[in-house]
């Protein structure tokens, strides 16, 4: 495999970012979309080449895929043992992510050619997309934990920039700030986790880190497990804190509050960042460190519980939201929760690693169908000029392509065979069934709820009442918007047929995936029931759904308000932190610190005010002082010093 191919994959989007960022607005406005898209096209092709040569041509040792580190350069060297390297790590999950990120990003680039047409900051938009793609690719290729942290922050910055793209809108500005602050807060945990692990393991490199911390006899392992704080070993603390960073980025409960608001950004951005790529960075991080996690029961349990809680929590909220992008956002959160708890159901190696495989498989398929649905939502919003479900209905006549592709996306996420989501969900449920029955039932219910809210969305948009289309805006989008939809729809159908176990597994060995018809009957039935309920309530315009909402009363309101988690955060930050810490600090600042500075200034001013009369600039006054001085000296010499 040619390492320059690998290097070019992230460098091309970076080059596009630099070029468009510097010259875009003035000189390249017309071509900025084309430049960005072409750079991504080349990156995408290169990723496919790399994937092909890695999976089919590279040498396997004992039948296992090896992780290869390319271009490992020392960047900062602290001590002879600890240094920060910049390199590219090629292993099954990073290659898989390369393909997913470049492909979805390419689709979004193409889609935006038309969607963002005529925007004032068109070139800036493509520059930001390039920056994001570069950071995300750097993140998946990182060969050491510090490098991943840097790209992790870059991803956060580009997400911030893109959410706040419509910076004239106060809500977009607030949303971008919220996203940045919440994820940054989580990254604090990530950084401390990195420091704990690297302090004990004396390395930042993933391979060495994993080798040292999974070898139960190594001195590093003994040191990190014997060191403890509050009765929990340093290893568990480190992993839990690293997971905190992952949970923040992946919008896991209770750090999920930024994701629904992040929908203020342009819709293609939501498809790329807040559905397919950036939000799965947390899952990727846990998967990257999976051998260590799998040895640490407590950390893995935390991952599992956070995952399942987020998954159910988000699925329930998604049933009540009316902004179509927010429904999709909560569904993203729910699906990422799925991936997280699926990881926690796995052990390292062999058949027990099914949960790991399932999680990665779901990540892979989810990227396609979720970005498909977001892009579909983009077409709809472009057509209706509104985000709210109540403004839609009956759009199937006007948007035939979107209708079909959106339907495919909904079927895929609901887990209806033979669409992609069915296969990956099947693996997750199988893994849960063998590990933990409680989790299995919870996951099963969530999958039924998922089918319900996705079809609630689908029927409300495309069926329900008759459309009131006004003006001359009767045509569906052009090819730049249709093509990505169609390609992603094909992937949403076909991605499940990929023999995923051939390529990705916890230990690199081939793990066959199997479909058991008897086992899959139950989840599919539940999904069909969910769809049927949605059909009854939303297919035609009727009052049944609002009657149910009224019947549920306070429960419905609580769900609709997202269980008041945002309000809780506001309460904690504004009332408690601001009042107990912020206000006293502000008081000390204004009264004591400012006061001391002001006091010294006012004392100086008062003294100079009182003595400045001496220097009047009047010659005769000076003369008087002079004679007065001489007279005083004379008196002193005559009477005192004899």
């Amino acid at each position: 495999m040619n390492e320059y191919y690998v290097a070019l994959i992230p460098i091309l989007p970076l080059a596009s970012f630099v070029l468009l960022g510097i010259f875009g607005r003035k000189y390249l406005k017309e071509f900025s979309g084309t430049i960005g898209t072409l750079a991504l096209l080349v990156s995408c092709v290169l990723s496919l080449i790399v994937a092909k040569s890695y999976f089919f041509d590279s040498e396997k040792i004992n039948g296992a895929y090896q992780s290869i580190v390319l271009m490992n350069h020392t960047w900062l060297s602290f001590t002879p043992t600890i240094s920060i390297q910049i390199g590219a790590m090629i292993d099954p999950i990073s290659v898989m992510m390369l393909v997913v990120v470049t492909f979805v990003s390419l689709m979004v680039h193409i889609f935006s050619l038309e969607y963002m047409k005529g925007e004032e900051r068109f070139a800036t938009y493509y520059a930001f997309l390039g920056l994001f793609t570069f950071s995300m690719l750097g993140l998946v290729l990182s060969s050491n934990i510090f490098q991943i942290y840097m790209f992790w922050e870059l991803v956060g910055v580009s997400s911030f920039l893109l959410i706040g793209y419509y910076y004239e809108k106060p809500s977009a500005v607030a949303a971008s700030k919220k996203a940045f602050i919440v994820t940054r807060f989580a990254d604090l945990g990530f950084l401390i986790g990195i420091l704990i692990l690297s302090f004990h393991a004396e390395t930042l490199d993933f391979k060495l880190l994993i080798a040292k911390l999974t070898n139960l006899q190594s001195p590093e392992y003994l040191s990190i497990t014997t060191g403890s704080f509050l009765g929990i070993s340093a290893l568990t603390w480190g992993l839990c804190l690293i997971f905190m960073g992952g949970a923040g980025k992946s919008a896991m409960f209770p750090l999920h509050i930024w994701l629904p608001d992040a929908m203020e950004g342009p819709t293609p951005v939501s498809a790329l960042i807040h559905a397919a790529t950036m939000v799965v960075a947390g899952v990727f991080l846990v998967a990257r460190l999976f051998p260590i996690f799998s040895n640490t029961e407590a950390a893995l349990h935390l991952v599992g519980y956070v995952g399942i809680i987020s998954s159910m929590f988000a699925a329930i909220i998604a049933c009540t939201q009316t902004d179509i992008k927010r429904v999709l956002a909560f569904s993203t959160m729910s699906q990422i929760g799925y991936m997280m708890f699926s990881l926690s159901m796995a052990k390292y190696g062999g058949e027990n690693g099914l949960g790991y495989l399932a999680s990665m498989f779901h990540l892979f398929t989810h990227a396609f169908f979720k970005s498909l649905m977001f892009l579909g939502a983009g077409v709809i919003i472009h057509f209706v000029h509104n985000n709210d479900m109540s403004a839609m209905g009956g759009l199937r006549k006007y948007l035939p392509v979107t209708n079909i592709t959106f339907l495919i996306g909904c079927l895929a996420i609901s887990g209806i065979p033979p669409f992609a989501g069915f296969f990956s969900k099947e693996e997750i449920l199988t893994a849960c069934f063998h590990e933990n029955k409680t989790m299995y039932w919870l996951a099963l219910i969530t999958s039924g709820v998922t089918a319900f809210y996705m079809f609630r969305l689908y029927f409300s948009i495309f069926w329900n009442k008759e459309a009131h289309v006004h003006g001359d805006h009767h045509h569906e989008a052009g090819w730049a918007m249709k093509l990505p939809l169609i390609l992603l729809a094909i992937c949403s159908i076909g991605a499940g047929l990929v023999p995923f176990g051939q390529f990705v597994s916890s230990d690199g060995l081939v793990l066959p995936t199997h479909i058991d018809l008897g086992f899959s009957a139950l989840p599919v039935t539940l999904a069909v029931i969910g769809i049927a309920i949605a059909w009854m309530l939303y297919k035609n315009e009727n009052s049944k759904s609002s009657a149910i909402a009224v019947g549920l009363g306070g429960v419905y309101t609580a769900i609709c308000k997202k269980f008041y988690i945002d309000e809780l955060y506001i309460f904690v930050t504004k009332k408690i932190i601001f009042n107990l810490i912020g206000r006293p600090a502000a008081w000390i600042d204004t009264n004591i610190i400012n006061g001391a500075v002001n006091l010294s200034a006012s004392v100086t001013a008062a003294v100079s005010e009182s003595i400045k009369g001496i220097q009047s600039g009047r010659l005769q006054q000076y003369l008087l002082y002079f004679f007065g001085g001489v007279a005083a000296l004379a008196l002193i010499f005559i009477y005192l010093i004899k």
Partner: protein
Amino acid sequence: MSQTPLIQILFLSVGLFFIGMYGLLTRRNVITMLMSIELILNSVNINFVAFNKYLYPHQLEGLFFTIFIITIAAAEAAVAIAIIINLYRSHHSVDVEDANELKW
């Protein structure tokens, strides 16, 4: 010939000195101030002459010093008047309060 007592001469010179100083401190007119300075110088001259006469009548240092002071006072007056003329040319005034460009 009865001699004037030294104390009376010193009263005269002290009187002259303070009249000169009063003029120097209160007048705004530069020429009056110059004249006041001359009064002060003359009071000093009288002191020199008087002390020379009463304390060391056989020596002449006091008298010579007086002559020096008169000469230098003449030169000083010439310089001062030149300055005053220039001041008048540029400010059309000989009031010290008007020449305040370099103040502050």
